[in-house]
């Protein structure tokens, strides 16, 4: 629910609707009747685009695609299992990325030159090399470290480094480097005066960070983090290379048997689009939540927008406020 204005002394909050109402009621202005500018260019480009679209549709209609196969596999267990694995490896990798990213950002912003340089080096290394390469390296770690050994626990690397762990480390550690930069930018975007005001009230460094800086930094951090997650949903398809059974891997397993390569890739595209669309809607609401206090009134939710539209069709002059 958006914060409502108090009905206190009418000093400034209701000023908006005044002039507009006055203009519409003023008597006798002669409306301008002019011949509008003709946008010939728009007509030509619209026709051109529609023509190209029609050609594409025609091409696909006549293409050698066995749509029946796509439809058959859309809700098969093997595919749904892949969707599930894609979701959970994405969520877990993102979680690892966010936690490690916050730690790296704080390391970089702390006055300590050692932690600062280490964080910088980490980001340089993991952002500077492809995720695909990193994934394969984690998976093949046994080639250089035959046993995983941390003193109290040891195990052959071959059994320790499961496809799941390789995917989690490959995707998560890479993500941490990007998240570190996003978090750092968010923290730095908060006005210096906020820190001063908080300190002047006797709040400690840690309290200032937790109660004052981070909640405001979230407004800057959330949108790119949502983008990162939506990217992650797609990037997780690379985990197929370490034999992690996510969506892409499941689809590959099917088409190596039935040879319906394109049909199965359509299945994958369908599910990736469903996942990214659902999370895009979620991101909209998250951003709206963290805009609280920054904007005088929150932007309407899609639902409120529809209601407002219906309402304004009936009583246009009231709906404006």
């Amino acid at each position, binding site marked *: 629910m958006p914060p409502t204005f108090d009905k206190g002394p009418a000093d400034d909050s209701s000023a908006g609707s005044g002039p507009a109402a006055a203009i519409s009621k003023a008597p006798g202005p002669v409306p301008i009747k002019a011949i509008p500018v003709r946008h010939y260019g728009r007509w030509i480009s619209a026709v051109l685009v529609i023509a190209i679209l029609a050609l594409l549709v025609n091409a696909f209609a006549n293409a050698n695609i066995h749509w029946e196969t796509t439809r058959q596999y859309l809700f098969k267990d093997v595919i749904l299992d892949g969707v599930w694995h894609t979701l959970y490896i994405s969520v877990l990798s993102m979680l690892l990325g966010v936690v490690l990213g916050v730690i790296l950002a704080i390391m970089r912003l702390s006055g300590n030159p050692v932690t600062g340089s280490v964080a910088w080096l980490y980001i340089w290394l993991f952002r500077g090399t492809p995720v695909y390469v990193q994934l394969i390296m984690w998976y093949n770690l046994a080639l250089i470290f035959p046993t995983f050994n941390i003193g109290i626990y040891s195990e052959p690397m071959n059994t320790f480094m499961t496809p799941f762990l390789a995917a989690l480390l490959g995707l998560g550690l890479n993500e941490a480097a990007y998240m570190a930069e996003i978090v750092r930018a968010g923290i730095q975007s908060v006005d210096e005066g906020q820190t001063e*005001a*908080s300190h*002047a009230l006797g*709040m400690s460094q840690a309290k200032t960070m937790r109660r004052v800086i981070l909640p405001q930094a979230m407004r800057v951090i959330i949108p790119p983090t949502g983008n990162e997650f939506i990217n992650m949903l797609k990037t997780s398809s690379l985990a197929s290379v370490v034999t992690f059974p996510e969506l892409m891997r499941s689809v590959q397993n099917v088409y190596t048997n039935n040879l319906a390569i394109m049909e199965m890739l359509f299945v994958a595209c369908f599910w990736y689009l469903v996942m990214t669309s659902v999370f895009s809607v979620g991101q909209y609401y998250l951003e709206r939540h963290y805009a609280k*206090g920054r904007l005088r009134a929150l932007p309407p939710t899609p639902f409120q927008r529809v209601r407002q539209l219906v309402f304004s069709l009936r009583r246009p002059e009231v709906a404006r406020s």
Partner: protein
Amino acid sequence: MTTGTHPMVLAEGVHKSFGLNQVLQGIDLQVNAREVFCLIGPSGSGKSTFLRCINHLEKINAGRLWVDGHLVGYRQKGDKLYEFKDSEVAMQRRDIGMVFQRFNLFPHMTALGNVMEAPVQVKRETRSVARERAMRLLDRVGLAEKANAYPAQLSGGQQQRVAIARALAMEPKLMLFDEPTSALDPELVGEVLDVMRGLAEDGMTMIVVTHEMGFAREVGDALVFMDGGVVVESGHPREVLTNPQHDRTKAFLSKVL
């Protein structure tokens, strides 16, 4: 320690520089309890910097600064100074309220949330106790009905009044005002000055950096004119403002009055 046996603020030879820029070059002054102490001077004269030194937002380079008999930011043992830890600095700041030129309200909290924040987080008061006092303070600055408004929904004058209430919520013994009306539209200045006048009448010790000469003359008990990082002239506001002795004071006043 009790107030009254010593000045609320005592500065001796306070120096502060930013790199090569010498901002304060030996400030000596004394602010007594229940006094309204006005600091005036041209921009860049160091008056805001001095104010920020009093609650240790800036570290001084030389000299000594006491608030209510306690050294600011350091502990003295023998002839050695030990720098305060962050937590000790925070503890010292509890008793000093500060109001900023640009309000610096927390934009993600309501007016009520802003005023309740420090008592709940720093003094560990229960929310109901803190809320009760916060509502009383908001009522005192005339904004009880705006308690649930966010800062972005308030005018500049209203925001500054909330900021004053927020500082008062910690029940400080000293209030610092850093050009509290300089960022306000002219017609909003009065409402903030009225609140400050009320505070002065209640006996709050206040140090006010200001360009409002009218306020200084009416409400001030003492006034200092600063220029180039030193105190040029000081005395009772009415005397300094109507009969300045120093040429630099005369030049400054002729421009602002």
